[in-house]
């Protein structure tokens, strides 16, 4: 059973912890202020603020975006050198940097705009905290840090059931729970 990170848009309050957790865990650039200001460093997990609607009807949401580790990953199909592959058992899409030629076909193919490129211009991205989990930690760094518990990690079946349980409870609340005792 493959594992995945579930992002709960209803819980994300846009605190940006996941983005820095990812930076620290993977020791990503920027390491200097100049690099930070140049806005060119790779970002494996990015928090986006999305504002929609006219004044008075506006909605503001936060999306924590990273690689979806697609089962039938367009980046894997597009990669001409086989640098990208998906490990069926773990569900991880991983990049072998020694095979990558930096052609950016993966960025063309990815429906989420995820692929990042470092100073060497080679592709890099989230690997679901491969090293961290091998070291015995239970969750990827972004999930473990999340203050709102908006990011969750687990088997997809488990994640789905947990979410449905929550939705079911909310549906009951929405109907006013009219069959409760006393009415």
């Amino acid at each position: 059973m493959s594992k995945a990170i579930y992002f709960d848009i209803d819980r994300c309050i846009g605190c940006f912890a996941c983005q820095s957790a990812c930076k620290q865990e993977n020791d990503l650039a920027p390491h200097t202020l100049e690099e930070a200001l140049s806005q060119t460093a790779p970002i494996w997990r990015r928090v986006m603020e999305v504002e929609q609607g006219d004044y008075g009807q506006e909605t503001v949401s936060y999306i924590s975006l990273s690689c979806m580790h697609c089962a039938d990953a367009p980046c894997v199909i597009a990669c001409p050198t086989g640098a990208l592959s998906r490990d069926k058992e773990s569900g991880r899409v991983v990049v072998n940097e020694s095979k990558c030629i930096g052609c950016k076909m993966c960025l063309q193919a990815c429906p989420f705009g995820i692929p990042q490129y470092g100073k060497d211009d080679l592709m890099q991205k989230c690997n679901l905290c491969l090293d961290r989990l091998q070291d015995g930690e239970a969750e990827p760094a972004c999930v473990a840090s999340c203050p709102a518990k908006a990011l969750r990690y687990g088997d997809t079946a488990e994640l789905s059931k947990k979410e449905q349980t929550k939705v079911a409870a909310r549906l009951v609340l929405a109907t006013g729970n009219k069959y409760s005792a006393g009415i």
Partner: protein
Amino acid sequence: MNGNVTEVLTVCGACTNSCSLKVKLKDGKVDKVEGYAKDPRTKGAICSKGLSAKQMLQDPRRLKYPVKRVGERGENKWERISWEEALKTIAEAFNKVKAEHGPRAVGFYNGQASGWGFPYQMYERMAHAFGADVSWGTSECFVPRVIGQAMTYAGVPMFPDYEKANMIVYWGRQPAFSSSTQSHFALDARDRGCKIVAIDPLHFHMAAKADRYLRIEPGTDLALALAVLYVIVEKDLWDHEFVDNYTNDPGLSKLRDHLWGGNSDQIVYTPEWAAEVTGIPAKEIRSFAEELATTKGVCIITGHGLEGRINVTQTARAIAILRLVTGNFDAPGGDLVTTMSPKLNAEFTLNHMVNPDEPPREFVEFFNVPQYNPPECHYPLLYAMQGCMPTPDAMDLVENGTVKAGIIQACNPLLMFPNAAKVKEILSKLEFVAVVDPYITETSIQLADIVLPAAMFLEKTEPEYFQYDRFSPYIRLRKQVATFEEALPDWLICVKLANALGLGEYFPSEDIAYYTDLMLKPSGITYEQLSKEFWVWFGEIEYRKYQKSGFALPGGKANIFSEVFAQIGYDPLPRFVEGAENRRSTPDVAKEYPFICFTGRPGPMYVHDQGRTLPWIREMRPEALAMVNTLDAEKQGIQDGDMIELTSLRGKMKIKAHVTNIVSEGSVYVPGGWPDANYNELSIDDKFCPISSQANYTSCLAQMTKAEKEVLS
């Protein structure tokens, strides 16, 4: 994994919320800073600030060793000196001033960055041993809210009972910014049907997730609170049992009279009146008030959004009264009072050395302060709560030449105080200035003769009991896991400087265990115990403690009518006072400066002016962006990303515009703490809350225009 990995539990100090951390060390060097899953307040969460702590250890912009100024003030030219020479220079300068003008001619200024528990007490100990008071500290924030609440129910309920709450009201508080590691409690509560309400001029982060969002004009929260009370009294939705038995206004006769026009302005605080002031429709105020009063278990979590205006303390009072009349004070699902520090040694801060006539008093609170009021202090309750000279008085003492030299630790007044130009002019009168800070700040550049490098939180060992959200009765030890060049902990700098000043008898050791044990003596908690156990609890979470012990206030009851305020001459019931500058209070100013220009926190990743040099977080928010409403932007011809110019009666500034509906029409939001886009060029420094001394520093009127493109010559 390669290398020898060890883990150390410590306490974060990136802000004052004090989350537990697990620091992973590889071959003895800090590798990762993570949350600690067994912390009951965080459940493993950590924020972007704590997660970037490792970069504090590698920041080339930090001050590495003591320096002395070699150019003129403002030139930013420094020369490395030894700790010994630095301390000797400061001590000689201070002792000379002391010999000629007395100890109070030296100002001891302290801010947030070093923390509020033990480090503040050590600073008090040093200043008091010298014979002087501590100055400013948090007179700028937080304590005004403490005063309003302490005078109402003799405590500060900062432990929201999230698990039992059925409504959580974030009032001027953005949990995504200042206490995100407790946000999971509120979101879990919502999953079981608890309503979330946000009262905020900015519609984003948690406010954008709220079930009810009230967009309020900045600075008018007091009007809303009074109108909510009006509806609750009018509809008879108040808790008769609690009010009649435990408050000094049984039947709410005084409050009712006050709300129905018995105040000195003869204003009837109806929702219709409040709608005109706050911009929130009267119907919405009524609906909110009724829902709040009929919901069992309501937490009202307030924040800095209520501050920086002249009505701050009365706003905190009105909200405190709201907690009382709805029966949510210290009740299940409401806001609980917890013991906020272990029993502290009343003699630790050497209060008798600034005021020999008063015996040490024994009680537990945040700040162990002298029980008297210095003659130069015009805000006795501010002094009583924090033991520091209020900002306006402290500034006067410099301006009139009473204070001639000073040490500024853990704060940056030249950037963070309102009316930057005037602050610089006044503080430049100080003949000698020492600054203690991890960085060379604007304050150092413009004023300092000597700058001492302060350690950041991974570089110091000290006890920590202070917290912010979900203030829980335990104390932990912050543990040193790294060193940075010659930087030293703030408390150790106090020890060394005190010794250089000839006060060694009060600072006989450089061992943290000595001071920890001395401060905690009456509690029985020891340094040894803290270093072994990590958590030491000194209290329980209990409901309705007033049933046993009453309220430590005049009459032994909760003071809806404040006896203390009445004695001093403040309004004993919260009377509405308009902000110092807005369209109603200063309509003539509004003609020329039509926009409400307000400030506050710079985002989830920054505290005050801190963190701007840390690459991981600077990348997320590289520059200051003012929020400009879409409709205003259209009228003024401003597009997203344009530079705009903001002008107030006091000054002007330039900043890049973010065109958005997060901010309301007619308002502009300028995030605080950015040196190159400094709101304090505009802000009001000379209008004060009469109770707390807080200046009206977060809101003023301004004109906004698109900035002319600068032509390069």
